[in-house]
């Protein structure tokens, strides 16, 4: 049975609550600010929102349920999506189906996390049972250590050089320089990248995201509703998710995209070459490279050659992470999984945080999340188009 299309679903109102390196506020505050921004942006009253999708690491002891009282919302549809970097696209998939089925009229999808001085360490030490039992006691490097293994393996296996990762990071920083919300806007060149201090060999400083506080959100509704409200919106051409793909690969050489990408492009009716930009999940550049290969922008194992042949700034032939990505914006917990999606909406709606990709009508977004033990378990992607 083929998947039902996402026809008739509209995405609107991308918002970002400006990120901060540290915050004394709770996640609840950040999520509330994002909801307020959604309402301000659209002129909707809070009561008009009847569905809520939430993603957050630092909301404990609460879940999305507790938020309904904090935010004073009576909802007929509620979801909590604990999928980290994949949560933006996964939230979209859930909300789109709810809207298509008539279970909700307008769903607010929000990811928000705080970052107290000790938040990151505590999130790491209790991230998952496997992480607690079999990763954190080994040097307590957090995701740096896990991605160092994956990067080390990729560099040897596929002949990827640090310069290749560096080219992606430098292009993203170029994109961030025009984005007033980016926490890291200092110009970065390849020499700076290569000369940065080592964090977890072979990863150096500019390979690693900087944890911060922040929130992002968007609305999901029917196209008719968006039109009636006078909201500019974006269509969903296709979307996929996959969890714990290829469990027998000894090192993570693939996410789940390889299993589902043909279906994604078939459903979308377009291909990688039709994309005007690509918002990849970029907690570490090796994962960006993995998504470029697996979503079919280049053949598997040829990512390094692809990087060498293309330009990735907003004005290049392959615009990537056009607001600077997490590597320059900062990683605001689960909001890092929303950042690419809201930036894609902004580009398609012609209201970017930084520079606009000229004439952008189609874009791809990819998410990746949850290093449960030795690899990221959740992968997701969506193809979007201007209405």
């Amino acid at each position, binding site marked *: 049975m083929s998947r039902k299309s996402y026809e008739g679903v509209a995405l609107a109102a991308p918002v970002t609550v400006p990120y901060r390196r540290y915050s004394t506020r709770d996640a609840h505050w950040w999520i509330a600010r994002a909801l307020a921004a959604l309402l301000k942006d659209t002129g909707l009253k809070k009561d008009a929102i009847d569905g809520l999708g939430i993603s957050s690491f630092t909301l404990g002891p609460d879940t999305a349920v507790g938020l309904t009282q904090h935010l004073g919302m009576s909802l007929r549809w509620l979801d909590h999506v604990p999928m980290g970097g994949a949560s933006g696209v996964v939230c979209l998939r859930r909300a789109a189906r709810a809207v298509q089925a008539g279970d909700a009229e307008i769903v607010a999808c929000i990811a928000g996390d705080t970052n107290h001085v000790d938040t990151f360490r505590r999130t790491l030490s*209790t991230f998952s049972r496997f992480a607690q*039992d079999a990763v954190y006691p080994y040097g307590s490097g957090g995701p740096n250590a896990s991605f160092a293994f994956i990067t*080390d*393996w990729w560099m040897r296996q596929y002949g990827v050089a640090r310069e290749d990762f560096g080219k992606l990071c430098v292009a993203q920083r170029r994109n961030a320089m025009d984005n007033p919300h980016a926490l890291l806007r200092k110009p970065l060149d390849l020499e700076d990248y290569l000369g940065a201090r080592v*964090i977890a060999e072979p990863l150096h400083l500019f390979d690693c995201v900087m944890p911060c506080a922040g929130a992002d959100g968007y609305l999901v509704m029917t196209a008719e509703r968006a039109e009636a409200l006078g909201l500019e919106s974006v269509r969903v051409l296709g979307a996929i998710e996959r969890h714990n793909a290829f469990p027998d690969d000894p090192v993570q050489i693939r996410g789940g995209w390889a299993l589902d990408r043909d279906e994604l492009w078939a459903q979308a009716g377009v291909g990688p070459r039709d994309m005007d930009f690509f918002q990849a999940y970029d907690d570490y550049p090796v994962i960006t490279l993995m998504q470029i290969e697996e979503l079919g922008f280049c053949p598997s194992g040829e990512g390094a050659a692809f990087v060498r042949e293309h330009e990735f700034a907003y004005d290049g032939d392959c615009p990537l992470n056009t607001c600077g990505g997490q590597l320059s914006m900062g990683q605001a917990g689960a909001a890092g999984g929303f950042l690419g999606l809201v930036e894609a909406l902004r580009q398609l709606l012609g209201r970017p945080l930084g520079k606009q990709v000229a004439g952008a009508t189609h874009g791809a977004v990819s998410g990746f999340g949850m290093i449960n033990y030795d690899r990221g378990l959740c992968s997701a992607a969506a193809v979007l188009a201007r209405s």
Partner: protein
Amino acid sequence: MRARPRLKNPILRTRQPLTPPMPRSRTALGLTAQAAEGRFSLQRCESCGQVQYPPADSCRACLSEELPWTPMSGRGELLAHTTLHHSNDPFYRERLPWRLGLTRLEEGPVVVAHLHRDCPPPPAAVGVTAKLDKAGRGVLVALPADELGDMSTDPRHGEFSCDPEHRKVLVTDGKSRVGQALVRELAAAGAAVIWVGQAEPWKKFAGQDAVEKLPQVTVVPLDLTDERGVKRIGAEIGGRVDILINNAEVHRTQGIADSGGAEMARREMEVNYLGLLRLAQAFGPAMRARGADGGASATAWVNVLSVYALSNYPPQGTYSASKAAALSLSQCLRAEMQDAGIRVVNVFPGPIDEEWNQPLPPPKLAPERLARDIVRGLRDGVEDLFPGDVAREWLARWKDNPKVLERELALESRTA
């Protein structure tokens, strides 16, 4: 060879002891239980044979819940490695850079392990073993394939071991054959200083001259029944002791019916149980304070108990009871020492070849063999040690079914 630790500048503040992260799921503590006895075992599914890691509550292939811990070959292939120059944990921050490896075991699972500095870069064959870390938790360690077991060549891995080399050791009783064998073995292992306790300093014990001929040795008065005396010697040398080996004991061969009053049992308890308590109160605080004192830190506390601590051996019923009491107390000591990273090692020998066990049939454990096993146990970093065939057989029977062992021992005492 352990590098000789640099002497600490006495003016510098002694650092607060730190340990690696301790929390584990109940299932994952199975790895610790195995490593405590010196084994590297993982869960192997009884139904389908799948070996899995990290530890989980069901087989990831067939969902069976029968997942007995099964010894691994230790052979593995290093797939990827990293050296951390940043850590989120204070213990590791003090020890950076720290090397880690992702290793595929011959049995299938891929494990994250501490990686010895001499392992070549991947792809490379490595040996994987399970050790107790400074927090007393089981961890996996990957070593060069050809030197499995020798941690001491990587100074960062020294803390998986309690090697007596260059260390200062107290042996609480020098009079017994076990005590003298321990002193000789420790001297041969390169201990820097060996204090040897003497309960009755007014009279020389047999063999004292030979012991005192060793240049590392100082004989000190130490009677575990004398609380003030124990405190005094604790105040004098407690701040320097790196390894304390408590081998002092009173050993009578009597059950209840043939003991004729409580006096002999009381003397056993005075030394075997209360003696341990007095020692722990006199030496514990100073050793705890030195738990993280760099390469020259306090590292281990060894109690020579008896396999009779597990289940009472009626012909030596009161002695068994005193050793069971000491075992219970040493678990308390272990809990109190855990935050300081000091390993409490319990030794459970079977009958030792000495006068009190004269009526017992062989095999009996030679004191030299016991001493050798204790020093090797310190080097290997184990926590529970069962030296000799008798002890290992008792342990197997006890683990299999303690009630059955109780009945068997009751029967053995009738025929003894």
